[in-house]
């Protein structure tokens, strides 16, 4: 099989499998299967946006869940004020994510490497503690949404299948967008900076601007994921943006294979399904889960995408 074919095999089969989920869900406990699959797709979306940063920009953000939280809180806060319209909520989610990304990016991108990791963690934690202090919106306990977002006044998302469809559509759209983005002029500057920043400066690029735009874009996608996340759980709380969640997202990216985009989807799927299956099997599932991660690192270089083949050239 040619490398190119192998490279497209994984993403195509991944998306095909995800597209078939609603069909199979009809055979079993439909809404439960859809709930798991929707959660998977949404976290995959967030992880993929993080891969844009890690895999292409070399920017390991340890505060990415903050964007997820912003998207979720946009839904929660607006809905608690009686604004249920999906478009308004989405607009608020994206605007909030963009603003937060711009402000924190301007500061965080002054640093590099592990210092970047930690400063993004710091911003994530600040937002986390801010959310816990929002007494009007449930503080630590968070708040339950009265209903899912309305689309043009219709409760279209009430059906689990519709929400899943919307989430999967968003994932596919963002995936294709990111594919284009990474191959574009912009994407090449971004990857070039990851490989050799000095070289890029020496041919006249100012990496900071490109990294900032990428950081904001990844934030926007994660904000979108947050919007969907709130609709899926019907609940918004600071836990959405805990540092553990940011960590989970990094692990999904690494597990799936850094710098492949679809790897993040595979990583999210592996991470969540493993957790689901193992935790169903034994209460002490973590005793197995931990070593599995270690083994994955030691023996599966390049993550799942690397195993299946077709690493980026």
């Amino acid at each position: 099989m040619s490398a190119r074919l192998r490279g497209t095999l994984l993403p195509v089969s991944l998306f095909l499998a995800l597209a078939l989920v609603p069909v199979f869900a009809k055979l079993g406990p439909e809404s439960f299967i859809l709930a798991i699959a929707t959660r998977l797709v949404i976290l995959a979306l967030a992880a993929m946006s993080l891969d844009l940063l890690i895999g292409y920009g070399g920017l390991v953000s340890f505060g990415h869940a903050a964007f997820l939280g912003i998207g979720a809180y946009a839904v929660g806060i607006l809905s608690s004020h009686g604004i249920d319209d999906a478009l308004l909520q989405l607009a608020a989610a994206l605007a909030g994510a963009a603003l937060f990304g711009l402000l924190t990016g301007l500061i965080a991108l002054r640093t590099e490497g592990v210092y970047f990791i930690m400063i993004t963690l710091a911003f994530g934690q600040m937002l986390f503690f801010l959310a816990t202090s929002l007494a009007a919106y449930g503080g630590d306990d968070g708040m339950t949404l009265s209903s899912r977002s309305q689309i043009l006044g219709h409760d279209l998302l009430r059906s689990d299948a519709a929400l899943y469809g919307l989430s999967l559509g968003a994932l596919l759209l963002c995936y294709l967008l990111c594919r284009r983005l990474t191959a574009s002029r912009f994407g090449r500057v971004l990857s070039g900076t990851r490989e050799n920043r000095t070289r890029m400066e020496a041919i006249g690029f100012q990496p900071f601007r490109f990294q900032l735009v990428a950081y904001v874009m990844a934030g926007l996608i994660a904000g979108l994921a947050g919007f969907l996340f709130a609709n899926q759980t019907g609940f918004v709380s600071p836990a959405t943006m805990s540092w553990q969640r940011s960590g989970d997202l990094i692990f999904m990216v690494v597990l799936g294979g850094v710098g492949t985009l679809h790897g993040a989807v595979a990583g999210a799927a592996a991470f969540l399904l493993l957790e689901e299956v193992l935790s169903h099997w034994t209460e002490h599932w973590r005793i197995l889960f931990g070593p599995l991660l270690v083994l994955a690192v030691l023996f599966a270089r390049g993550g799942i995408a690397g195993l299946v083949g077709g690493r980026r050239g």
Partner: protein
Amino acid sequence: MSAALRLQGLCKSYGALKVSDGVDLAIEPGEFRAVIGPNGAGKTTLVHQVSGLARHDSGRILLDGRDIGALAMPDRVRLGLARSFQVTSILPGFTVRDNVALAVQARSGSSFRFWRDAAREPELNEPAAELLARFGLAHRAELPAGLLSYGEKRQLELAVALATRPRLLLLDEPLAGTSHAESREVVERLQALRGSLTILLVEHDMEAVFALADRVSVLVYGRVIATGTPDQIRADPEVRAAYLGEEAA
């Protein structure tokens, strides 16, 4: 006539060590100038300061009469300055073509384009292909640059520097570490460039320096002690004492 590059009283020190101690230098447009000097004379630091990778403490750097001392490296590059590095600096994961195409991109149009596949843009690929052909790398175009031989990497670095269409090219020991055959090839390329742009070459290889340079400046302990044609420099007793003498001994 204004110089293409003029350095006035350039000073820089690392702690107590003065690496540039009032360097004055003027290079005419189209001139091929070499800077030689013993190890630790501050040659590479000089290139760093001119290119903007390192900041000078005092003095002025004038590119075509304009003071660029306060500008960051990318801004100086935009004004027509390009450089190579002593330790090869390329993008190892990118193909050879993309290394050059990216440099072409830096000079042609906006890079804030998010949609079109850059690998299929003729306006990037064609100039890149032309440069690769000039540097004998056409057959390597699809290879990841990290897999090139050492000499090829040095050629690639020259191609990348030229792809930004500079008016002033700074070369930091382009022959360092090359084999005899490789170094001859590089010298040939440089020979071909003579006159088409202003070049500042820092180099240890005397044979190459004297073959290529219009004029040679000698840097010792951060100071320019002599400037002249290769013949004048060869004959300068001070230079011989301070520098060539040691080398010959």
